């Protein structure tokens, strides 16, 4: 029975083998020949020509090593400062939460009908018809006779203006119809303002009163539309 390749390689590499195997290989020409081939193969492997890299890679090694060091330093810094980052995130989240809470509070304020609007809607004295129209006496009377009512209209207009400004900003998602209505009302107010400014001195008191009355009505409508718009946002499921 001849030695296996593993056994011959073990003998070649001076690994422990049985005495019987060693004796057989010493005596067997075939095994001896095969063993010699394995020895020769190992010697030839060790004598194979050596090669050099195609060029000098030392600059690349240095550059990449330096880059790696910088990256490692950066990662360590990131790890070190990640605590600060977390704290800053938590702070930002708190601020946003408080801001959101306050914003919701404003919405709640808007949900209550403004006093001025209530006053305006509950007492339709603002409308021109409710004033029963100008009488001949009134038309012929002096401006002093209509001044208290005109003052009242001006004051009411100013209060509606203030309420309008106090309302929260319009929602980001708006209806085109509502926007058209609001734009129309604002244009109406602007037109009345133009007329009031244009005929400051010489227009009759009655005309001024009518203009102011119309302004109050338009402002009232504007506030109501804006208020309705806020209500829709407040009651939306989102």
């Amino acid at each position, binding site marked *: 029975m001849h030695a*296996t*390749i*593993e056994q011959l*390689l*073990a003998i070649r*590499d001076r690994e422990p083998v049985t005495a019987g195997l060693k004796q057989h290989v010493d005596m067997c020409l075939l095994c001896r020949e*095969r063993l010699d*081939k*394995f020895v020769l*193969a*190992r010697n*030839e*492997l*060790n*004598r*194979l*020509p*050596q*090669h*050099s*890299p*195609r060029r000098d*890679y*030392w600059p*690349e*090694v*240095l550059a*990449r*090593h330096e880059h*790696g*060091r910088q990256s490692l330093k950066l990662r360590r810094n990131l790890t070190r400062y990640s605590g600060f980052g977390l704290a800053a995130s938590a702070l930002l989240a708190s601020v946003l939460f408080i801001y959101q809470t306050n914003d919701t509070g404003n919405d709640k304020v808007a949900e209550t009908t403004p006093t001025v609007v209530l006053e305006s809607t509950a007492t339709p004295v603002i409308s021109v018809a409710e004033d029963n129209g100008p009488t001949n006496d009134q038309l012929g009377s002096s401006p002093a006779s209509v001044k208290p009512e005109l003052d009242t209209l001006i004051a009411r207009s100013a209060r509606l203006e203030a309420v309008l400004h106090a309302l929260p900003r319009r929602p980001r998602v708006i209806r085109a119809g509502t926007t058209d209505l609001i734009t129309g009302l604002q244009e109406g107010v602007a037109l009345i303002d133009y007329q009031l400014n244009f005929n400051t001195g010489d227009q009759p008191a009655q005309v001024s009163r009518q203009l102011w009355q119309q302004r109050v009505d338009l402002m009232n409508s504007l506030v109501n539309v804006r208020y309705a718009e806020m209500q829709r946002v407040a009651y939306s499921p989102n």
Partner: protein
Amino acid sequence: MTRFADCSVAEDIVGRARLGDPAANEVLYRTYSTAVYNLALRLTRQRTIAEEILQETFIEVLTKIGTFRGAALLGTWIREIAVNKCLMHLRSGWYRKSRPLADIAPDHGDYVVTATKPEHMDLERALANLTPISRTVVWLHDVEGYTHHEIGKLMGKSDSFSKSQLARAHQRLQVLLEDTNESEQPCMQLSNNY
């Protein structure tokens, strides 16, 4: 000096390299780069991969030289890093995907035989016809002097695995070399770009 066994550097160079002295680092590179490159070229048979492994090996050497305690020879330590890089490449999904039969079929790579002696040319050709695993085992055992236990450990296998791989590889080499002697082989591409 192109084999790990033939390379050595003075103790003070190693000490300076440990402290990060660039000049000492360069001495290490100049001393061991050819040995690392040859090992990588023999195992991977691809010059580009061998050059990449050469760079990666020395990047790791420079990074970890501070932890080298001198329990082993510096050459042994560098060789271990290089061998691990080569095995990582051979085990990588990228390599295995590009060569689905890598375990059972030879991988000739882009390595061009440049031996001048006929017997060396035959041996180079025979080596190229081994599977990457068999070639690695043969090279590590017969040239680099690794034991079966060390090879088994490197590959995550047993000593027997290494022994059987070596036996199979030598059997294949003998067959290939005998075939070469018996039949006329086509001309080998010679390259002078090394």
